[in-house]
């Protein structure tokens, strides 16, 4: 059963407009909190709820908010990360197209908690439609006094601007995003200081993913307990939007209890495997996560459950491969993406990824040699020592390919060609 929190108001092909959103109880959490609550209430509720960041890193939003020090300087920034460039991920787009005001209210509450007056939605240029929707709805919210000065007569000021990116995967990385916003080259920054201490323009800045923020009004309204109980298991909390794609019958976004089993996601919600396909593997949370092999087919897809098994849920972009798919080819494709998108700051990423790509591409083309395999394994491991989390993410598919599908790799080498391609 789909437990819909974020997507409960999803309309085919249109957004939930402001009136509808308010009618469904929207902005009441914010109104009440701003008028009667303390900033710490939001933070405490989120921490108790165990709301983990949905942008990939799964860091507790409540804990993050608690690192904005009481006496930290003003102005402070609340940044919504709508870059969503992780291959396979499209939940933020769906969320914005479903209920933009849920996001706006979430930002408002988060900003209240951090006492931030500037809100920025950083959005990838491919989402031009979403950007326009947000600009329009932000203006409407402002007209109704939901943004701007003295919101709900609480004395709290907060406004939002939409910032279009020029388009690069690395811009979604929280600190690179700050440089991008400042009009600098979007290389990541190395904490400390953390953005909540010195972020945008060296001022306290909270960066959260769209989906994370959309949960905020619900948690504030319904409480931590309720949120925790939404999950499928005791170690998880809330629901999760799974962006399912690849060899399934019904690719799409499914909001399910956190920790729903992979098999259930595929079979019950995504319509099962496409064609006559058999499940071979999936990337559970976008391009920068490890392949889950068939043995994991029934694993619960929650942050805790996957990390216990040595995997990462990432953005929960489940990319499904069947037995007709060449994982070597898929990984070559992923490496090409990462090599192209590297910001060029540190050596492992800038030069190591093209090397990995070259080796694997040779294998796929039938020019591979046995010694490439240990080289791939060693270098993939060494990507963990890059400057930011980009390169370790990029290495995850390669490393897991060698770990779980070494035979497939060696088959390429032995045959001198890709066994999945028709012999020419």
């Amino acid at each position, binding site marked *: 059963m789909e437990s819909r929190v974020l997507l409960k108001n999803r309309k085919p092909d249109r957004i939930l407009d402001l009136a509808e959103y308010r009618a469904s109880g929207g902005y009441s959490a914010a109104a009440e909190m701003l008028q009667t609550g303390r900033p710490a209430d939001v933070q405490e509720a989120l921490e108790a709820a165990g709301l983990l960041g949905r942008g990939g890193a799964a860091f507790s939003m409540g804990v993050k908010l608690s690192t904005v020090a009481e006496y930290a300087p003003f102005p402070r920034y609340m940044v919504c990360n709508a870059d969503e460039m992780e291959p*396979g991920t499209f939940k933020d787009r769906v969320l914005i197209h479903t209920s933009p005001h849920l996001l706006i209210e979430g930002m408002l509450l988060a900003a209240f908690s951090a006492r931030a007056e500037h809100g920025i939605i950083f959005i990838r240029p491919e989402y031009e439609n979403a950007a326009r929707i947000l600009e329009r709805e932000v203006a409407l919210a402002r007209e109704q006094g939901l943004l701007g000065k003295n919101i709900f007569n609480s004395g709290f000021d907060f406004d939002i601007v939409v*910032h279009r990116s020029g388009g690069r995967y690395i811009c979604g990385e929280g600190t690179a995003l700050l440089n991008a916003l400042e009009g600098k080259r979007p290389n990541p920054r190395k904490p400390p200081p953390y953005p909540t201490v010195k972020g945008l323009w060296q001022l306290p800045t909270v960066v959260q993913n769209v989906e994370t923020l959309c949960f905020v009004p619900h948690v504030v309204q319904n409480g931590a307990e309720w949120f925790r109980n939404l999950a499928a298991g005791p170690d998880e909390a809330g629901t999760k939007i799974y962006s*399912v794609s690849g*060899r399934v019958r019904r690719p799409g*976004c499914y909001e399910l209890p956190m920790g729903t089993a992979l098999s259930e996601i595929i079979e019950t919600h995504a319509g099962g495997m496409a064609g006559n396909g058999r499940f071979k593997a999936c990337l559970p949370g976008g391009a920068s996560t490890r392949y889950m092999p068939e043995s994991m087919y029934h694993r619960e897809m929650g942050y805790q459950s996957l990390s216990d098994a040595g995997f990462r849920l990432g953005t929960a972009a489940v*990319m499904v491969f069947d037995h007709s798919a060449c994982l070597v080819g898929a990984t070559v494709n992923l490496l090409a993406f990462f090599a192209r998108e590297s910001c060029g700051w540190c050596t492992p990423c800038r030069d190591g990824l093209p090397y990995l790509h070259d080796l694997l591409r040779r294998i796929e083309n039938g020019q591979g040699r046995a010694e490439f395999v240990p080289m791939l394994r060693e270098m993939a491991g060494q990507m963990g020592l890059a400057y930011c989390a980009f390169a370790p993410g990029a290495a995850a598919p390669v490393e897991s390919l060698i770990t779980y599908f070494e035979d497939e790799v060696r088959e390429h080498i032995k045959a001198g060609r890709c066994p999945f391609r028709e012999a020419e």
Partner: protein
Amino acid sequence: MLPEQIRAELEIRIAEADHPQELAVDVMLAFQEAAGYLSERALETAAAMLKMHSLEIEEIATFYTFIYREPVGRNVIHVCDSVICWLDGSESLMDYICRKLGIAPGQTTADGKFTLLPACCLGYCDRSPAMMINRKVYGHLSRDRIDDILARFEREEPA
């Protein structure tokens, strides 16, 4: 170059901004909107408007995918080449478009109508394979659908 009104609006936003540099990408995109790409002159003008060194603009312009520093066709096609679209045959679709338009990726048709570029995952994996033309995404591509879509552009703008 930049239509007066747009320029005036930008000037106001720059004047009001705490940190005009935050608007660098917006300004570049505005110039690009007007001329198709960010020309040398536009680069200089953008730098002057933002009180930045033109090299600082170049540094970020050359970082981003969606800032074109060279002239492009009137319609820019970005074909997604990331993994799900690849799984669904984006490589052969790219080949198909290349043959159809008579250009290679990165090139512009002789009549200046289309520029063809690869793109990262467009965030439409649920409708793969996908491509984007002028910021509008087209999913579930097949050769027929590509024929249809491109024909629409041909119709809208007779040669």
